[in-house]
């Protein structure tokens, strides 16, 4: 019994203290992975904030964006041109979604809009494979997947670039939401459609803007994840990893998506490395969901979410 307690509560920390550079590597790996989760979660938060819709299709949008980019590059377009074209495709998609999905369903219950985004998932998945094929594709954006050492800590260039990009994007979006006129309009629309209309905010424009931004986030996510693990169907499943991040951070909070991502990323890496051997490994796969469950029980609004108070 005592040896079990020792193995769970003491030994891992002794290991950490014993090899600080290794701990640093694990932490950096965790933060890098966490920022990538934040990126996906951010796509959800944006749309949820502005339309109250839980966009089930966010993961597929990531896949679709990556497929489009790779497909265009395979057709021989230079990276920059292909990227611009992909942006154009995602913005066009936002217009299309507003026109075909959102506008006819305005004022419907959230669950109906949620179902509509499930439908959108299948449409995008099929469309992506129809246009670009179902093979695993390699995405090379010119960042070498190689490692180097700083102060004895092993770092990966690709991971660092991805983490840096995610950090910048997250910061820009957070500022955009908090500080700008459009950010304020987005928050207003998310809160009350009628009131937003009455003060002169056109809902359609706001929806197109927000789905476009979510599309851009999807492109960045698609590039980063795609460069790491290839562009393939499983890319759309990273959306599942974003769910616990959202539950942790709160569905309506941009900073929450970041902090949630970081907690999940570092938590699962630390858990895997230091506690994994105790249970035969694979902690990384379920850690996030366990944590989410705990949060659902004790703090369902998440760390930064708006508290839900019902008036009786």
């Amino acid at each position, binding site marked *: 019994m005592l040896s079990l307690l020792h193995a769970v509560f003491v030994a891992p920390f002794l290991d950490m203290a014993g090899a600080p550079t290794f701990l640093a590597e694990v932490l950096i790996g965790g933060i890098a992975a966490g920022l990538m989760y934040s990126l996906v979660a951010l796509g959800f938060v944006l749309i949820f904030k502005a339309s109250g819709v839980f966009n089930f299709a966010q993961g597929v949008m990531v896949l679709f964006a990556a497929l489009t980019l790779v497909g265009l590059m395979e057709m021989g377009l230079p990276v920059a041109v292909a990227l611009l074209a992909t942006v154009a495709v995602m913005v066009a998609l936002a217009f299309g979604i507003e026109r075909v999905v959102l506008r006819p369903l305005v004022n419907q219950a959230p669950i109906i809009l949620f179902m509509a985004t499930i439908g959108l998932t299948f449409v995008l998945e099929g469309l992506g494979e129809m246009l670009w094929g179902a093979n695993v594709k390699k995405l090379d954006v010119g960042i070498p997947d190689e490692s180097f050492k700083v102060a004895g800590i092993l770092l990966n260039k690709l991971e660092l670039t991805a983490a840096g990009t995610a950090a910048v994007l997250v910061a820009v979006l957070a500022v955009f939401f908090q500080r*700008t006129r459009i950010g304020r309009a987005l*928050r207003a629309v998310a809160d009350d459609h009628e009131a*937003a*209309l009455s*003060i*002169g905010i056109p809902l359609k424009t706001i929806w197109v803007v927000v789905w476009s931004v979510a599309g851009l986030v999807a492109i960045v996510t698609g590039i980063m994840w795609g460069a790491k693990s290839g562009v393939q169907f499983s890319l759309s499943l990273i959306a599942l990893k974003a769910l616990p991040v959202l539950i942790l951070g709160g569905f*309506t909070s941009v900073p929450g998506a970041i902090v949630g991502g970081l907690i999940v990323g570092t938590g699962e890496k630390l858990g895997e490395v230091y506690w994994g051997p105790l249970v035969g490994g694979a902690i990384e796969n379920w850690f996030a969901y366990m944590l989410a469950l705990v949060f659902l029980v004790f703090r369902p609004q998440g760390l930064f979410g708006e508290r839900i*108070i019902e008036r009786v």
Partner: protein
Amino acid sequence: MSGAGRPPSLLEVDGISVRFGAVQALDGVSLEIARGEIAAIIGPNGAGKTTLLNVISGFYHPNEGAIRFAGADRTHLKPYEVATLGIARTFQNVALFKGMSVLDNIMTGRLLKMHGSFLLEALYWGPARRQELEHRGFVEQIIDFLEIQAIRKTPAGRLPYGLQKRVELARALAAEPTLLLLDEPMAGMNVEEKEDMCRFILGVNDEFGTTMALIEHDMSVVMDISGHVVALDYGRKIADGTPDQVRNDPAVIDAYLGVAHA
């Protein structure tokens, strides 16, 4: 109203009819609201008062009839386009952005007055910063005016009902409207809160010269603050005139008390 000496009309509602399926919510209603006046729309429940307000603010479009605002036809505009014309409104059931602070709520009322570049705003730099401060200054004036300084930072959803109504009025005022539509601004308030609200409404009219149309049930309030009363019943206009004229109008008495059949 064709009485001599009245100032020119700001809003003209001309023969408006609205049907929801088989329900005739409004039936050929015409009225005029003069620049600078406080007009009250009264009537029993289901008379079509809120429908009329919704038509004026563009949430519903009439099946027949036309609406002219400041001389121009605007019958078929959408709500956000109506807002750009300078018509602001509040809602019967309070439509605030519940998750946002009182200050942010009122600042959203300034959205139409704000211009400028995305990038500068994001950086909170130069003209964008100046603009934000300028608008913030205006909003602070409204906050002072409506005496809600103490709740600036409180999320609107946590306020008691009476204060929510006041914040909603503040948001509408932030847009510096030419015409302000108030849907039951005093519903659910106690006497003291009603008196405060009356004071604010008269103050706004006085200070900013804002034209107002309000729906109200409390007849004593109506008589106190408005110079022009329009009575509706079953979607039709049954009386239109000064408070005294309307109060003594047999049709209005019938609508409120029932027709005496004896």
